[in-house]
C-alpha cells in the first residue's frame, strides 16, 4: 500500500530517531568493529596492532579445536531441534485429539519456556549431580556410572536434555496452533473414506504442518546456537576437554578468557556469515509463503 502521510519532512525522522540511534551505536558500530578487528593482530597488552590480512581467519580455520566446536555445534543443534520438535509434535497431536482439556495441557506444558536457559541448566545439573542427583543415582543402581565432569558424551547429553526441556514448550505452542488450524472438513472427508487415525495423520495433517515444522527447525537452530549459552556455561563451562564447547561458547572463551581478540573477532565474522545465511534461507522461504 502507498503510505498515507506523504508531505511530512521532519515527523518520520523524529519517529525513527530513537530506533536508528540505538541500532547504529549498539549494532552497526560494534559489528563493523568486529569485521575490522578480524583483520588485525593485537599484541598481548592491547597497546598496538597491525594489519594481518587473512591471518586470523587462517589461524582459526587451521585450528583443530575450531572444527571440534563446529562438530559439537552441529550435533548439539540437530539433537536439540529434532528432540524438541518430535516430543512437542507427539504431545500436540495428543492434546489436539482429546479436544477437551487441550488448553489445560497447554498451561501445564507452556511454563518451561519462561525458565531462563541458565536456570534450566541448574535444574538439570541438580538432577544429575554425581553425589546426590536423583537420576544419576538411579542410573548408578542400573550400573551406569554418571559423571558429566569427566565424561564428554555424558556432558553433551546433559546439556542437550536441559535445552530440549526448555525449548519443547515453544514448539508445542506452535504445533498445537497449527493442528487446530487444520480444516476439520478434510479430516471428516477422510473418515468417510474410512481412513484410520494413523493414516489421517500422515496423509493430511502432517503435510499441512510442514511450514510450521520448517519454521521451528530454523528457530530451534537459532536457539541452540545462541540462547543455550547460559545452559552450557552453568552446566559444563564448555568441558570436559571442549566436549560441550559450541561456536558461540568458543567466541566467548577465546575473546574474554583467552584475550585473543583477533581470533575471537574472526570467529564472530564467520558466525555472522553462518547465521546470516540461515536467516536468509528463512526470509526467502517466508516471503514465498506470504505471497500465495
Amino acid at each position, binding site marked *: 500500500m502507498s503510505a*498515507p502521510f506523504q508531505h*511530512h519532512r521532519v515527523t518520520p525522522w523524529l519517529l525513527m530517531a530513537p530506533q536508528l540511534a540505538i541500532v547504529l551505536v549498539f549494532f552497526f558500530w560494534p559489528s563493523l568493529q568486529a569485521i575490522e578487528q578480524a583483520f588485525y593482530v593485537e599484541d598481548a597488552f592491547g597497546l598496538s596492532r597491525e594489519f594481518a590480512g587473512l591471518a586470523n581467519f587462517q589461524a582459526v580455520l587451521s585450528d583443530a579445536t575450531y572444527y571440534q566446536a563446529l562438530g559439537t555445534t552441529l550435533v548439539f543443534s540437530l539433537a536439540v531441534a529434532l528432540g524438541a520438535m518430535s516430543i512437542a509434535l507427539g504431545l500436540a497431536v495428543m492434546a489436539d485429539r482429546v479436544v477437551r482439556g487441550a488448553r489445560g*495441557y497447554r498451561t501445564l*506444558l507452556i511454563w518451561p519456556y519462561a525458565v*531462563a536457559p541458565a536456570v534450566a541448566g*541448574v535444574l*538439570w545439573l541438580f538432577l544429575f549431580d554425581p553425589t546426590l542427583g536423583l537420576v544419576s543415582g538411579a542410573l548408578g543402581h542400573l550400573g551406569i556410572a554418571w559423571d558429566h565432569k569427566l565424561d564428554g558424551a555424558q556432558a553433551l547429553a546433559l546439556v542437550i536434555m536441559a535445552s530440549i526441556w526448555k525449548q519443547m514448550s515453544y514448539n508445542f505452542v506452535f504445533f498445537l496452533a497449527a493442528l487446530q488450524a487444520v480444516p476439520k472438513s478434510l479430516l471428516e472427508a477422510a473418515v468417510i473414506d474410512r481412513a484410520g487415525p494413523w493414516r489421517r495423520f500422515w496423509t493430511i495433517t502432517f503435510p499441512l504442518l510442514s511450514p510450521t515444522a520448517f519454521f521451528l527447525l530454523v528457530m530451534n537452530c537459532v536457539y541452540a546456537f545462541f540462547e543455550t549459552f547460559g545452559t552450557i556455561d552453568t552446566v559444563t563451562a564448555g568441558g570436559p576437554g571442549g566436549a560441550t564447547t559450541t561456536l558461540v561458547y568458543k567466541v566467548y572463551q577465546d575473546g574474554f578468557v583467552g584475550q585473543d581478540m583477533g581470533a575471537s*573477532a574472526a570467529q564472530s565474522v564467520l558466525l555472522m556469515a553462518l*547465521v546470516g545465511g540461515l536467516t536468509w534461507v528463512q526470509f526467502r522461504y517466508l516471503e514465498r509463503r506470504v505471497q500465495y
Partner: protein
Amino acid sequence: MRYRRPGLDWLSHGLLGLCCLLFGLPVWLAVTASTHTLGDLYSQTAPLGFGDAGLDNYRELLGGAVGGLGTDVTTLLVNSTLMALGIAVGKIAISVLAAYAIVFFAFPLRRLCFWLIFITLMLPVEVRILPTFEVVADLGLLDSYAGLILPLIASATATFLMRQFYLTVPPELVEAARIDGAGPWRFLRDILLPLSKTNFAALFVIMFLYGWNQYLWPLLITNDADYLTIVVSLKRLLTSADGLVPWHYVTATAVLAMLPPIGVILLMQRYFVKGLVDSEK
C-alpha cells in the same frame, strides 16, 4: 461415529499427564531441595518431599549476602526486574514509533531505514559480543542499568511485529481520520495506540521473558555485585564454595529466579500465545 476412539483418548490423556509430571519433576525437586539444610541434602539422594528447614534458606538469601555472591538476593531480584522492565518498555516504545514511520510515511531513504533496522534480526548480541562490550566500555556504561538495557534493545524483533500489525490496519481508517482533520500524531495517539493494546501485551510478555532470562550480556558487563542479575548469580553460587555445591541455596535462588517469569507467562498466556504465533506470519 468412527471418528471417536475412546481408547485412544484415554491413552492420550495418560501420556499427556505423564509428560506434564515429567516436565515438572526438575522444578519439583528444586522446590523440595530448597527446604532442606545442606547437611540434610548431602546425607541422601535428592529428596522428593519437603524438609524441615522451611523457608529459612529463602530468608537467609533475601536478608543478607550469602556465599560468594557479595550481595543479597533481594538486590538481584530488583536488578532483574529493572532490566526486564527496561528492555520490555524500551523496546516497545522505540519500535512503535519506528514501525509507525516505516508503514505510514513516505520519506526519502525509507527503504534504507527499513533494511538498516531489519538486518539486526539476523545477528543476536552473542555474535558481536566483544566489540559491543568495547563500545559500552567506551561509553562508560559498564556496571550500570543503561549498559544492561540499551544494547539489548538494539534488535528489531518488536519493530518487526509492530510493522506486521500496522500493515493490517485498513487504509480507510487512516483516510477517515485525515478527512476529520487528524494529523499524524493525533492519529497515532487516538486511533493506532488504542488499537495496538493486545499487541503491546503480547510483546510485553515476550520481551520481559527475553530481558529477565539474559545471561551472557549481564555476565560480561557487571563486575560490581550491586548490578548483578539473579540468573547470572547462579553460576557464582555454584562455583563459589570450595568442593561442596551449596545446593540448598542454589535451588532456592533458582526457584526465586523462575517465579516472576513463570508468573508472567501463566497470567498473560493468551496474549503470549497470540504474540508468538502471530510472529510466524
